[in-house]
């Protein structure tokens, strides 16, 4: 366990930036906090919710994956060293989910893992909910991590208490910016953790809904009613840190062509349409059912991890109030 003075956060990240490209939440105007490489705006030193999670670093909205030229096919693997600071516990858990998904059937997605194997993740625990739509504790998880991380920062006022759980993390803590911890830091840490668990946040009744869904499913009419509100924008998927659906397309490039992978969403009609024109998810209601049920019913069964980490971004983004919080509440009303 070590300490880092908050005033030393920026110099520390700058120092690290010499070895790895460092991303962190930065405010670019009064409203928006974005995750970007250092230097885009003012570094946010408190836990905060970026509008898009750091999933976009590992699985970008649009990426080049293959270059087809007369010399053959080149697989484009981005193996640049990166680091990210300020990842919250919920977002870290989403990465664990995406890891499992991208390695399913023992077939590892090369484009994802090229980036994943070269990223150093520095998480920052939340002392209290960072937005009105946070509900990680309701999903049965804590606003901090118990295991699996390299480095976890805790906000202790004027300084961070920093834990390492890996050799990579230990190496980082060798930097001169970190100082030894105080004998009281352990106690402070327990207090921060206790308080963060007690902090009031959204409590739609996640566990109750998940339990009910084990033996039941809402009737199609339930989803059809929600579909009268849904405008099928796909925003819920694009901001979701565990959504991994993608599309592939080719575009002419230097006499050959480039193959791109982009985000996609199961909320779109064409996503599940078959070549014959038949669509097993033809109605918007059935697509809503698929999206939400697979997160909280199928994913836990298939991957042993919940497809929802309680970040609340879908509830932030949805223009018609159909995020996970609202869906859980509605299911619990059945």
């Amino acid at each position: 366990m070590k300490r880092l003075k908050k005033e030393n956060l920026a110099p520390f990240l700058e120092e690290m930036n010499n070895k790895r490209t460092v991303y962190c939440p930065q405010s670019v105007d009064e409203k928006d906090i974005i995750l970007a490489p250092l230097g885009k705006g003012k570094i946010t030193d408190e836990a905060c919710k970026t509008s898009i999670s750091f999933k976009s670093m590992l699985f970008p909205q649009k990426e080049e994956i293959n270059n087809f030229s007369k010399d053959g096919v080149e697989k484009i693997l981005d193996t640049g060293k990166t680091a990210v600071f300020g990842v919250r516990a919920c977002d870290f858990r989403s990465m664990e989910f995406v890891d499992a998904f991208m390695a399913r059937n023992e077939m590892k997605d090369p484009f994802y893992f090229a980036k994943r194997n070269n990223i150093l993740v520095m998480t920052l625990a939340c002392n209290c909910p960072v937005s009105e739509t946070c509900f990680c504790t309701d999903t049965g998880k804590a606003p901090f991590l118990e295991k699996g991380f390299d480095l976890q920062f805790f906000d202790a006022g004027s300084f961070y208490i920093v834990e390492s759980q890996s050799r990579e993390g230990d190496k980082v803590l060798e930097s001169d910016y970190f100082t030894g911890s105080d004998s009281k830091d352990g106690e402070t840490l327990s207090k921060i953790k206790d308080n963060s668990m007690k902090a009031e946040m959204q409590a739609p009744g996640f566990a109750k809904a998940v339990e009910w869904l084990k033996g039941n499913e809402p009737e199609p009419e339930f989803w059809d009613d929600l579909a009268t509100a849904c405008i099928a924008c796909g925003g819920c998927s694009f901001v979701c840190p565990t959504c991994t659906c993608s599309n592939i397309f080719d575009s002419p490039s230097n006499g050959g062509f480039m193959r791109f992978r982009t985000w996609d969403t199961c909320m779109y009609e064409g996503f599940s349409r078959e070549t014959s024109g038949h669509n097993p998810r033809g109605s918007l209601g059935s697509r809503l059912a698929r999206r939400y049920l697979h997160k909280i019913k199928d994913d836990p069964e298939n991957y042993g991890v919940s497809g929802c980490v309680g970040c609340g971004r879908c509830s932030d983004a949805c223009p018609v109030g159909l995020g996970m919080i609202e869906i859980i509440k509605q299911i619990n009303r059945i």
Partner: protein
Amino acid sequence: MTNSIDEFEDASVFMVIGSNTTSNHPLISSRIINAVRQRGAKLILCDPRCIDLAPLSSIHIRHKIGSDVALINGFMNIILNKNLEDKTFIEERTENFEKMAEVVEKYTPDYVSGITGVEPELLVKAAELYASTKRSMIVYAMGITQHIAGTDNVKSCANLAMLTGNIGTPSSGVNPLRGQNNVQGACDMGGLPNVYSGYQPAADLFVRNKFEKLWGVDKLPEKKGLTVIEMGHEIEKGNIKALYIMGENPFISDPDAKHMHRALKKLELLIVQDIFPTPTSEFAHVILPAACFAERDGTYTNTERRVQLSHQALPPLKGTLPDWKIICEISKRAGFPMDYNDPSEIMDEINITTPSYAGITYERLEQGWGIPWPCPSKEHPGTKFLHKDKFTRGRGLFHVIEYIPPAELPDAEYPFTLTTGRIRPHFHTGTMTRRTAILDREAPSPFLDINPEDAKSLRVRTGDKIIVESRRGSLKLSVNVTSDVPKGVVFSTFHFKEKNINELTLCAVDPVAGIPEYKNCAVSIRRS
């Protein structure tokens, strides 16, 4: 829009007429959806088709295409007979009420039912609901304007709002939803045949003198210019020899495409300025490649009249220039040097020439999220909703409007009514959206919506090919059988260049605005 978008939050009744809001203005639609689902606001939907808003409507009126004037006159007849009109508002704020009321007398529920095909009881319910609050909003789009009676339809909406005093206060008004991100701005800047910026009439000597002085030129033309459709006719007659098109694809978007084809081919000089090649640019002698929105600075004026600043995010592609620079270069070569260093200097000139934009400066736009006009001075905060206390012309004028039928009604030879519009994944002629892999996947090919009963009598199923034919042309299309369209009506879109639905539409136009009747033409259908 007379209102601002945020005012949707407090409206009690929405009358959506001729707007497929969820498809074409999804975020504005989300305001209506939330109002209905979350706080019990009421929706009167007047649309022949079952659009996405239909399940949320309290009343869905599926009137015959092109019968809007009769429908609204019918509402007014009911409101007057039930004494639901706002007498104080009529007295204090309007004129010509009696003459309007006299004509409306004829439009009894039974009479209107005969024209529109709507049950009289439903008409009464809708009229009563609209008149029941002072927070009723009319929302319309191209379903109102793209008719030969388009101007009449708009005036009818204004009549109805004035009759019930539903205008000039928060959350009550008449709200045309603009179909493009800056079509409001283009019109505001005088992109019309008869006005200078800020709708200052070119026929007005005082206005012409003002612009002559400001621009240092002699004798600005006093004659009204031509509308797009008129230009097509004049090219065919040989009166126009050169055409300069910017950011428009009339070969696909204009009615009667064969006519447009002849016209474009006849031109001695066609210049097309756009960000991508289009079917129209294939006719061009000169193509001027323009920079796209992300490659330039500028402002956009959205549907609520809000002028918003947009900054360049990327350098323009090699060989392209922002539109304003292209225009300046052309002007310089034509002998009238326009020297602006950047768009903010153009805005400085707009501030001087255009009273409604006088106080909208780049400096102010940098500070916030835009300013809605009218904004007459640098101290003025902008205007949330129009016509508070006073209309632009003083008193609001009730127009006397009689119903006229559409130009081309179905008959024995062409028994179906074709109506056209847009669907969610695509924008207009698809020159941008059809280049985007996922959007094109969402709607990869053209189709014709047809009612199940009609499909049955034609013996076609979804996916079958049919020939749809009008007096102007014919197309082979896949059918999509759906009760979203009423019996006798078929629907298609103008997104697909490979099957251009505008080969079938007709050039009949509204006599005032010149807008073509895209929403109604007669067609026949047979199995392919």
